[in-house]
């Protein structure tokens, strides 16, 4: 374990995860999970699938520590309508579950999953408009 960390210490999280190709693989699995989950898929009912997938990709790229231009303010404004529809912490938890399950399916080591989860978690207050 320590050996792995030593050799990869200089590499960014994004590269360790496999970069853009890894994001694409993850988006596909993650978005299917989210869309087929009856507890949250009503938040995805009305907008276009391509646009949604593009947003998932931007989100995962950020959570993977990759290049992004996400700001907390954008997160707040784009999610405000969902908060009005009842989006709350339990929904956020479900999305987090799908995210970690996706990474586990892709055989990402637990230590890296924890790092991704921590970045995603940091958007909680903005997404929920708290």
């Amino acid at each position, binding site marked *: 374990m320590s050996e792995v960390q030593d050799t990869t210490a200089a590499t960014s999280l994004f590269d360790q995860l496999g970069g853009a190709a890894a994001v694409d693989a993850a988006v*596909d699995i993650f978005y*299917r999970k989210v*869309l*087929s989950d009856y507890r949250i898929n009503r938040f995805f009912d009305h*907008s*276009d*699938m*391509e*646009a949604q*997938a*593009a*947003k998932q990709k931007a989100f995962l790229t950020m959570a993977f520590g990759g290049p992004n231009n996400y700001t907390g303010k*954008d997160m707040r404004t784009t999610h405000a309508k969902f908060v009005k529809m009842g989006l709350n912490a339990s929904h956020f938890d479900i999305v987090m579950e799908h995210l970690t399950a996706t990474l586990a399916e892709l055989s990402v080591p637990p230590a890296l999953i924890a790092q991704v989860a921590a970045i995603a978690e940091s958007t909680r207050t903005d997404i929920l408009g708290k």
Partner: protein
Amino acid sequence: MSKLTLNGATFTSQPNETVLDTLLRENIQIPNGCRQGICQSCLMRSVDVPPPVSAQVGLNQTQQKQNYFHACVCYPEQDMMLALLESEQTIFITARVIQKQLLTVDIVRVVVECDTELTFFAGQFVNLLRDDGLTRSYSIANRPQADNRLEFHIRRLPNGQFSNWVHDELVVGSTLTLSEPKGSCHYLSGSEAQPLLLIGTGSGLAPLCGIISDALEQSHSGDIHLFHGSSHHKGLYLVDEMRELATKHTNFYYTPCLSGDNVIADTVQGRAHDVALSTIENLKGWRVYLCGHPDMVNHSKRLAYLKGASIKDIYADAFHVISPDTK
């Protein structure tokens, strides 16, 4: 509220206004058609910042990279510097009607001959313009051949301005103005073995006809499944032609579907997309074409994806009609 700059003038967008709304409110003449981000009549370019991704859906990669976007569905997220397309970039074609024939009580086949050479992919659409500028999108139902002909299947909508004009006033010999062919819902050569699923409702059969004949012409070897739906048996058309095609090509399967209560021999009862998606277990590796009613298209897109088709393999033309409140 964002600031939009066009040709040196600056306009402020109101909350919940699209770029098109703002410019029209300021009396800037911008060509427009479907107002749903499909027909590309109001296409423009952001000179400085990337436009919102949702305003670029349906454009090809080059257009996306060059920051082109649909003004009618662009809710600006920041200040933008805009450029309109040069008029020479907008190509118009003149065509003459050479055939008009009723396919069902409310769908007419119109064949036109263009006065210039035309390159297109079967399944693309063009915008048709009436003399007074009224513009609507119609899918091309034939595949490209040397004759510069285009075939359309146009359904009469109750009180629809353009479709009633086509049905009642357009005659053989009339001239029409067309945009260049647009859209990415077409056959792709290069993956001849990929199974294809095509679902169409009403005149949504038009682009699918073109795609199917193109695929068969290019010796597509994968299975091709067509499901055509209507509420009433009188709404199904080209039934004999499709059955004949299915006899001729062992990899082509045709299922006419009726969503109404009437049961007719050799048709399946149910909505076309329900029938299709319950017949086919897994769509992993398939290419899917969805044309016709917007609700059918959107619903099926999601189901096809959840059944394993990847987003890049799902092609759709939702026949959006302009909703009354955008007129």
